[in-house]
């Protein structure tokens, strides 16, 4: 009996010691006492500044808008490769918003795999020739009264560029910033607030973001890119409310030296943001299989190209992501296939495989 108690005790001690060995090495040694703080309802904090993140978003939005000029109408609208080069490098005052021209940085420097996403944008120019696209031949595919510009495999490179940039720039930066905050000491509030604000800037929502508001396209404060996707594809998973709340709470917690709450909010944001990418990707690998879209290559390729961009975002997912490396590879392989093949597969085998991975991994 005594022996049993003893061994149980030894076991418990052993477990305890193992557990204590697993302590996060970056946890602050001397935690500052938590002081009282309140979580506001809008992102109005005394020293908030996310100008650079906001400007990066605006640069990408202007590039996207420029590339989309080619889509107007059914006939050729020429694009200027030099202008695109300048927008990527921020040289020669390429932006309509003059603040961006003097921002002192360019999006290339912030984007992972920047040359790939630049190549996507360049491909829009390359295939903007007036030729009607067919399998193996890049060119125009009608979409409604307008058109899209696709490559030989049906990829609408403009969408691969902008949705890919949302992953390789905004999402990647936000994840890096939030992780950096998690590793900071609770007393280091200035650095943490700066990083936290920048991450918030990459979400691109107004400081008084309200999920019940339908933002008008003329509204200068309307959500952009990821911010727009909170409503466009994230309603069913409450992405907007969850992420915005966590940003408010985490930012307030930093001021209160409350690292536990701060870190929990960072995790909530990263997990929900990644799930939002998955919800968007799921929509775009599902929509092309509906009978209302089948036979309409413009609709199908547009969706698949967006899907390609969102799938690429998972390359920059947090280390604790639910998505396994093998499943990411499968998704990536599928979205890199010839779109003409994907939309003509009996039973859409590949797209259904992609749907199932996304559904099962992210509980969608």
């Amino acid at each position: 009996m005594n022996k049993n108690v003893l061994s149980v005790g030894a076991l418990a001690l052993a477990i305890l010691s193992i557990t204590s060995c697993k302590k996060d090495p970056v946890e602050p040694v001397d935690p500052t006492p938590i002081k009282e703080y309140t979580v506001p309802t809008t992102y109005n904090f005394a020293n908030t500044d996310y100008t650079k993140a906001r400007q990066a978003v605006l640069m990408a939005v202007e590039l996207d808008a420029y590339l989309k000029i080619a889509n107007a109408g059914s006939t050729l609208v020429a694009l200027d490769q030099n202008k695109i080069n300048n927008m990527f490098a921020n040289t020669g005052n390429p932006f309509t918003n003059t603040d961006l021209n003097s921002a002192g940085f360019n999006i290339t420097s912030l984007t992972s795999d920047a040359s790939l996403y630049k190549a996507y944008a360049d491909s829009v120019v390359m295939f903007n020739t007036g030729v009607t696209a067919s399998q193996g031949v890049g060119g125009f595919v009608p979409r409604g009264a307008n058109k899209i510009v696709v490559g030989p495999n049906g990829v609408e490179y403009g969408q691969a560029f902008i949705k890919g940039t949302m992953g390789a720039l905004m999402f990647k930066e936000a994840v890096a910033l939030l992780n950096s905050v998690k590793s900071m000491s609770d007393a280091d509030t200035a650095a943490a607030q700066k990083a936290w604000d920048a991450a918030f800037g990459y979400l691109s929502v107004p400081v008084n973001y309200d999920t019940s508001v339908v933002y008008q396209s003329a509204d200068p404060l309307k959500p952009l890119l990821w911010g727009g996707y909170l409503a466009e594809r994230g309603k069913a998973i409450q992405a907007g409310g969850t992420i915005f709340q966590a940003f408010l709470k985490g930012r307030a917690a930093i001021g209160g030296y409350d690292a536990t709450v701060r870190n929990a909010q960072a995790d909530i944001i990263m997990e929900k943001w990644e799930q939002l990418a998955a919800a968007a990707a799921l929509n775009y690998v599902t929509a092309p299989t509906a009978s209302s879209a089948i036979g309409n290559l413009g609709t199908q390729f547009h969706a698949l190209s967006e899907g390609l961009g969102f799938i690429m975002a998972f390359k920059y997912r947090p280390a604790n992501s639910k998505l396994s490396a093998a499943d990411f590879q499968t998704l990536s392989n599928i979205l890199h296939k010839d779109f003409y093949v994907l939309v003509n597969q009996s039973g859409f085998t590949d797209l259904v495989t992609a749907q199932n991975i996304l559904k099962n991994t992210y509980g969608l």
Partner: protein
Amino acid sequence: MKKVSFLIVFVLLAVGFIACRKPPTDQEVENGFDKTAMLTYYADNIIVPGYTAMVEKMQALESASNTFLAAPSGDAQATVKEAYKQAYLQYQKVAAFQFGPAETALLDLYLNFSGGLDYSFTTSGELTGFSVDTNTIENNITTGNYNLANMSRSSFYSQGFPALNYLFFAPGAIEKYSTNTAARVAYTKAVITRMATLVNNVSTGWTAYRSEFIANTQTNVGSPIGNMVNQMAYQMDLLKGPRLGWPLGKQSNGIVFATKCEAYYAGFSVALAIENLTNLKRIYVGGEGKGFSAYLVALGNEQMNNDVLAQFDAALSKLQLIPDPLSNTLTTQPQTVDAAYKEIQKLLTLLKTDVASATAVQITFMDNDGD
């Protein structure tokens, strides 16, 4: 201790209360209206019998077709035309059930491709609306090298009702069977066999799907009620666009596209449109107090229901004034077609906006992507 047990009771009560509060759309019975009974009525009285009748009409068409193909003649052609018309009319009665088994089979695409709502008559070339891809059909006959399971526009436009329309009823259709006869007969039979097989699959599929259909009383995306409202609105959009408005020139500054009428060569486009709309009303009304009509009233939208019913009748009465063949009427009496178009447009708005909103159904079939 007393306080603790009080707290426990309170928590239990709260939990019980929350558990009882289902969101309204999950309830089988909402405001005294039994949604399961409604779906059961649709399945057993409209959908399943509709597909059973479709199987029978396809058998009749196949039989008439075989007689014609064995010895093409004017008389045999007339018999085929009647069987073709009956099958086509029956198809209009099930066209709005493009979900579940029909969606799995992509029935609407393979039987009666409408070209989709995003393809413009003016900018997207020949293969738009209710077209027939005669080049591909002739090429398929000549080469014998085709796969009707392909999911491309030229594939959809070279099979189903549109292909038969051309093969049986285009000018010189009978004479064409005297050249390359075996191949032409084989292709015609392949088209009919494929139609019959797909219809059989859908009809059989409903045996298993029925329980899933009546058990799900939600109204979210992909739910039976969501699908039915979406499909009613989609068929209305097809009426307004490819069936009537676009051939009339609504998309092309008044330039008429006569050859884009549904069943152009057979010449009974208006009959098909009337059957389509009549059936949409039948779906909306249901029967025995079980249908969207009664559901709307139960939800407190009596006036809206009255408006919808009146608008169905207004649109139908205007549609009935259009003489077939529509391809001629488009130029001889464009104002008659336009009058029907206007009523259909009003009805579409009611269904797509008001009814969808009242039933909390999201319309999902449009390519409404923000960019």
